[in-house]
């Protein structure tokens, strides 16, 4: 369907308002209100709160009706054949995503007023949070690649600021740097991909690109798969896929509400969102340039699907032997992001978006719950030093449990059940049984590590002084938990999957569930194999977890399987492998570059040239004596020169 071009009407103003409100609040806080906590709170909460209200309005105005609206873009610059413009897309995909981003961001803002209460840098925190929300909304609303890339980098910067918020802690500063650099590697590929697509189609606008591709499917020629894979590299960085996943667990050094917002619900989802936005570029038959022709019939989607599946499996395995509550959740996020990427690769971007939406709710809830636990246990993050929290923190426990159920995919009573099943169905429909197998296997792993977490941290007896005095935090922290619990349980009962299907594939026939049993038990009818297998593995994981960890004072696994346990605890040595291979290589290149820079560039060019320039500048100053007679003489000499040269 062609986008309806409307003049500047209210949808455009609404979208601009949603985008700019957090930026305005961040700027106001940075420039003027750094010393005023109350005003900071009011300003940032209302900016995001109003943004959420407007997003809901926009969703019901335009999202539900399925209209595709393209705002008349503001022309920004045009250089040669590249014309860049600022444009906002309002379509079903972006309006729902807007609700997710502003909604979770708002709850995280509310929660942070409690969690960050005692931090001396409170206003800086909220300014960074606002700046991040602005950047993320920019990606969601962007209607072209250039704008996406700009906001993509802004998200990277704001995440750097937030991960390194406690910059005086070396671990936090290092983690921020690691996250930024790792992302830059992916972004480099992303930029190359954008350039290839722009060179071939002559446009950076998504709509124009889709139209060109439709009119002339072979327009990308032999570069089709390469472009797809390069664009995917951007998502590999941002959505922390293998092998660039190493930054996400380290990024847990940031404040916990930040982890909920950035590393669970929004930023890491940006990669998946972008893949769905440009799905038409990925879904092309395999075609490689001559140098890469050995890749044969492997298409971009194959690469994407396998990367996602492997990430999902590896992260799920590593999570089993982590002891830090946030790191467990971080690996679980990696694993779930792997699912989404796999879904895109299996031709199911709608399933990916569905899972992204449900995951945003329950994973944000899990992180905020973990935050409440950490807060109550005086910043203790090791689950073996908790225990017995269920009795002392009932609100946190029950909401955490509901979110865990959703993450594991408990049938009917959780949203994750429906979205995961959509992914399994997509894997089966695209005829990739191995990927389907991996997907179902990961359900078992997920249940195992999450049950381990719940059993050790919340059940049994307290294992530390701090844990025995823990209590539910104040209302501004429990309220977001309760609110998030609602969609975590119930989102699957709504036709979100069908909504995304018609959003991404306009005109596609969607399976519409009607009647009680069909709505609630749809997966058992729709793709029974995935649903039943998943349920079985879930029950298996649960029983293994209970058998191993119920009443255990310490982890028995290092005793039984020492080698495997050590490998998992060292996160399968990814960091070590990079340290042993890439980093020496990088250091060698850096040393060479340093030598060239120091002796040739700095010494010969810069010192030489700048010394010369400096000398010349000083000489010129000598002319500028301040003596009026000299000046007047030079003026008249100048006149003579002009007349002489002109009449020559």
């Amino acid at each position: 369907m062609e986008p309806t071009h409307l003049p500047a009407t209210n949808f455009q103003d609404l979208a601009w308002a949603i985008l700019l409100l957090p930026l305005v609040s961040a700027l106001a806080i940075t420039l003027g209100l750094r010393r005023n906590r109350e005003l900071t709170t009011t300003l940032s909460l209302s900016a995001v709160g109003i943004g959420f209200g407007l997003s809901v309005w926009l969703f019901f105005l335009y999202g539900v009706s399925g209209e595709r609206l393209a705002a008349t873009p503001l022309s920004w610059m045009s250089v040669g054949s590249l014309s860049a413009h600022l444009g906002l897309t309002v379509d079903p995909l972006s309006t729902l995503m807007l609700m997710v981003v502003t909604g979770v961001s708002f709850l995280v803002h509310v929660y942070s007023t409690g969690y960050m209460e005692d931090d001396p840098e409170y206003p800086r925190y909220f300014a960074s949070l606002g700046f991040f929300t602005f950047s993320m909304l920019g990606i969601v609303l962007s209607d072209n690649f250039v704008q996406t890339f700009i906001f993509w980098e802004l998200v990277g910067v704001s995440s750097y600021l937030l991960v390194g918020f406690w910059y005086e802690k070396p671990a936090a500063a290092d983690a921020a740097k690691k996250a930024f650099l790792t992302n830059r590697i992916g972004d480099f590929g992303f930029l190359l991909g954008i350039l290839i697509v722009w060179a071939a189609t002559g446009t950076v606008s998504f709509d124009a690109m889709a139209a060109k591709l439709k009119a002339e499917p072979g327009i990308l020629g032999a570069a089709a798969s390469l472009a797809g894979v390069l664009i995917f590299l951007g998502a590999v960085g941002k959505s922390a896929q293998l092998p660039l996943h190493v930054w996400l667990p380290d990024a847990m050094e940031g404040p916990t509400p930040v982890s909920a917002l950035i590393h669970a619900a929004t930023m890491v989802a940006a990669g998946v969102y972008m893949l769905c936005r440009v799905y038409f570029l990925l879904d092309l038959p395999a075609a490689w340039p001559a140098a890469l022709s050995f890749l044969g019939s492997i298409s971009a989607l194959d690469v994407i699907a396998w990367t996602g599946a492997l990430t999902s499996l590896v992260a799920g395995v590593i999570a089993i032997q982590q002891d830090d509550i946030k790191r467990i959740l971080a690996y679980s996020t990696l694993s779930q992001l792997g699912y989404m990427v796999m879904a895109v690769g299996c031709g199911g971007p709608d399933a990916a978006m569905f899972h992204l939406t449900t995951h945003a709710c329950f994973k944000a809830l899990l992180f905020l719950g973990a935050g409440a636990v950490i807060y109550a246990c005086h910043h203790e993050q090791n689950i073996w030093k908790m225990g017995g929290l269920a009795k002392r923190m009932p609100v946190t426990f029950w909401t955490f449990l509901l979110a865990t159920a959703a993450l594991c995919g408990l049938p009917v009573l959780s949203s994750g059940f429906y979205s995961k099943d959509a992914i399994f169905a997509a894997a089966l429909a695209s005829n990739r049984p191995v990927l389907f197998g991996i997907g179902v296997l990961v359900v078992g792993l997920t249940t195992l590590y999450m049950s381990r977490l719940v059993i050790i941290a919340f059940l049994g007896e307290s294992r530390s002084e701090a844990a025995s005095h823990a209590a539910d935090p104040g209302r501004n922290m429990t309220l977001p938990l309760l609110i998030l619990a609602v969609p975590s349980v119930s989102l699957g009962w709504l036709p979100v999957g069908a909504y995304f299907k018609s959003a991404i594939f306009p005109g596609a026939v969607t399976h519409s569930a009607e009647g009680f049993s069909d709505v609630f038990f749809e997966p058992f009818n729709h793709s029974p194999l995935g649903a039943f297998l998943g349920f079985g593995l879930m029950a298996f994981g649960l029983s293994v977890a209970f058998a191993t960890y119920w009443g255990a004072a310490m982890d028995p696994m290092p005793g039984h399987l020492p080698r495997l346990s050590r490998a998992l605890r060292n996160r399968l040595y990814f960091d070590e492998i990079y340290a042993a291979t890439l980093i020496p290589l990088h250091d060698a290149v850096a040393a060479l570059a340093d030598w060239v820079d120091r002796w040739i560039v700095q010494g010969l060019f810069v010192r030489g040239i700048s010394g010369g320039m400096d000398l010349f500048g000083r000489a010129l100053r000598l002319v500028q004596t301040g003596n009026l007679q000299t000046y007047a003489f030079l003026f008249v000499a100048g006149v003579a020169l002009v007349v002489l040269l002109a009449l020559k």
Partner: protein
Amino acid sequence: MNSSLLAIEFLVVVLGLGILLADLWIPSGARRGLAYAAATGLLLVLTLHGGALAPGDDTAFGGMFLVDALANYFKTLFIVATIAVLLISSGYADRLDGYGEYVALTLFALAGMLLAASANDFILMFVALELVTVTFYVLVSFQRRRQSSLEAGVKYLIFGALAAAFMVYGIALIFGSANTTNFYEIASRQAELGKSPVFVIGLLLTLVGLGFKISAFPFQMWTPDVYQGAPVPTTAFLATGSKAAGFVLLLRLAYSVVPEVMARWSHLLLGFAMATMLYGSFAALAQRSVKRLMGYSSIANAGYLLLGIGATNVTGSTAILYFLSGYVFTTLAAFAVISRVTVQDDNDDISVFAGLGNRSPLLAAAMTLALVSLAGIPPLAGFFGKFYLFKAALLQVPTSPLFLVAVLIACVSVVLSLYYYFNIIRVMYWPAQDAVDRPVTVPMAVGISLAACLAGILVVGIFPSGVIGLAHEAVAGLGTPAPEMHVQAHHAAAH
């Protein structure tokens, strides 16, 4: 005669006289109010200029006075700049004895600039420029008790007189050879006049006078000294209004009055443009006085603008208008900050900016934005201004390779300028020594003008197409004097 064409100039003069009168009754403590009143009055004039009093293209005073799109564009620019200067000066009122006169003189200078934008005759051009220059003699030396201000005033006076002498001599030669001083009549006979050495020398001497106004090499000697000695609001006005007045006349001469003669000198113009840029950028490298640095920066920017004059194509004239619009906002924002930072002890050494990032994040951010724009970093106004000027010059490369050399030299100059602009930014955020932790106050009026200038930098830079469109319309009429207007001018002269 259609004297309603002069409504804007008339209103500004009346406003100035009103301020002078009001000054008699206003107690000395409340003189700041005069600046607010003048600024409000100008805002009103600006609205009238854009609305009810917007005149169509016409001439008055026997073809001496011309209103066209170009004149209107520059008039808007002059009025906007003056409003900002008045607001900046209101924060400086305590340092200027007899502040009421300062405000009135500023308005008279504006009247001179407005007349210059409409000048269609060498005589009116001379009178208008002298109105500006003579007013500036007083504005520059306004801090009578400060020796440096007086010294700057005397220097400006002597240089101004020198330049005026050359210019009036030049005009006499032009009249002697052409028997007229009207732009239209000279334009219609330029092929014949261009062969007369007397006319050519006359024209060159007139250009010398304009070269002084825009501080082009080799007539730039006065700039750093005067910029440094004058009170900050005056410096801001010199750098924006006075310079733009020189450029509107240069533009008219080069594009409309004697384009054929000027085309012969394109190599000469380029040569002086390159010398101007390099002189400004090199001499700025070792500067520690921020006002002096802005003086050199102003010279370098005149060099870039001369590229547009030399290019003699529509892109060039459009680029000049666009560049000046962005430049006015950028420079005024920078001077608004300088005025606040240096006001306490009249010291403009770069060290007073040390640690400004902590003392006043707002001012530091504003200064950074202005300097980054001056340095020409996208997406701010300064980047696109230079971009279009360079583009105009590159379009002329097929006619002469010297244009390519000029653009390369301009790039060198831009790189040099990065060094001295970013040096200020470095000092503001990463001071070498422990900075005085003295907070800087920003009065409301200065804050408003600063905010408006920053908005200007961003809007002109981020949405260049709007301003480019306006500038393009403004220069569309250049070089094609409407024949019926020409006839009208004759008739009027005959009466």
